[in-house]
């Protein structure tokens, strides 16, 4: 079991619903996100799907405040995304960004930024991701899967209410994928809202409660996972589910 004091008491989903109101994002004259409006009400794992270059990562960066919308607004329970809300989120990047320090120091760096009572037990977190034995090793010596697990553990140090993950299991070995998925399910059960980007349809079937499908910066579908896989809202989503190339 996930025995840390990570989510005691469980969160009350105070930042839900997450709403995007006519959000667009342009860069270098290109419309990377094109007038997306949606309301994420689910308290389970929301998965963002879409082909390469669809704008999935940009959408996640907009949700985390790393990018500002060119127009429109991002609201968490009716409040515009601000620093206070951002501090209740954590993001795991596609390429694990690790400090050039030991494994435990990567976690303590984040812990030192928080108030003492707001952090998780670092050793227990490392046990959860199977890295306790390597806590004093330089993080750069970890394998790809271990680095990503460490990134996830570091994201959990601040006890986020919303966890954003940008393809955290891409090109990882099955053991690391399983470990991350197991941890995510535990977090979901402890009321952490998870938004997750993946290309892996099987993973989406395993984890998702609802699915956002975007293509060329446009929202093509936002459905429950069951509906999405049985009856996708758009032809692009249908083609994607069937494994066809979409342009």
């Amino acid at each position: 079991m996930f025995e840390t004091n990570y989510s005691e008491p469980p969160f009350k989903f105070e930042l839900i619903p997450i709403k995007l109101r006519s959000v667009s994002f342009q860069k270098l004259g290109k419309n990377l996100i094109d007038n997306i409006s949606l309301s994420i009400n689910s308290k389970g794992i929301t998965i963002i799907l879409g082909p390469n270059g669809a704008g999935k990562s940009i959408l996640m960066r907009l949700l985390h405040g790393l990018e500002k919308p060119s127009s429109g607004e991002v609201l968490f329970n009716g409040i515009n995304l601000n620093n206070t809300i951002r501090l209740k989120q954590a993001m795991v990047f596609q390429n694990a960004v690790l400090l050039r320090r030991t494994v435990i120091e990567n976690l303590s760096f984040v812990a030192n930024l928080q108030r003492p009572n707001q952090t998780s037990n670092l050793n227990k977190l490392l046990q959860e991701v199977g890295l306790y034995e390597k806590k004093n090793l330089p993080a750069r010596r970890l394998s790809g899967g271990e680095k990503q697990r460490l990134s996830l553990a570091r994201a959990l140090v601040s006890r986020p209410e919303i966890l954003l993950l940008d393809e955290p299991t891409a090109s990882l070995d099955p053991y690391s994928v399983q470990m991350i998925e197991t941890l995510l399910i535990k977090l979901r059960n402890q009321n952490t809202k998870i938004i997750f980007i993946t290309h892996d349809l099987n993973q989406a079937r395993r984890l998702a409660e609802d699915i956002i499908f975007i293509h060329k910066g446009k929202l093509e579908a936002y459905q429950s996972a069951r509906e999405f896989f049985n009856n996708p809202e758009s032809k692009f989503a249908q083609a994607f589910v069937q494994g066809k190339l979409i342009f």
Partner: protein
Amino acid sequence: MQLFSESLQTAFYLIVSGNSDLFEIIMLSIKVSLTSLLGSIVIGLPLGAFLAIHRFRLRSIVLSILNALMGMPPVVVGLIVYLYLSRSGPLGFLSLLYTPTAMIIAQMLLVIPIIAALSTQIIEDLHIEYRDLFRSLNVSTFKAIMAYIIDARMSLLTVILAGFGRAISEVGAVSIVGGNIDHLTRVMTTAIALETSRGNLSLALALGFILLAIALGVNIFAVKVKNWAMDK
């Protein structure tokens, strides 16, 4: 070759005999160079980190000036410090001319641009890697700068060594502002210049060998520290 072997013998004799004048010169050289290096690190590293992570209108001009200052002739720096510290200069009331402090100031002016400019490039690369993470974690500028300096410590050690090399080998500026006064401001480089001009080549070479040995020793020590830290 005879001159070299004589110089080596002289150097060896001076060291093993515990020549007090020689050790006084060596100690002052090390003291002045290390103090100026320390001051340059305290100013140069945060300055480099600041320039690496902040974008402002005159940034490219500041970086160009900093790069140009890396190649500034020491005698020019010595002259400028001299003008400021001389009795009629704006800082003449401090009575620092011909003191080790004046030499430290001159050396710092030479070393700070090296440390700041080289560390800017190193930290900028790290900043590109860490930027999103630090924004995500809402890390303050001060904490980010400290993190960059800590995490780039191995590369910055090389920068610091370059700064030390500049300081310990410097002669033009320290002879102008220090005056090469015996038992007060005479360091190894100025002593070498003096002994050469006197025709005392074997003593000059002996001092040169000792200077080389110190520079080599510091570099070997730094490489050992770097390897030790890399293994950790």
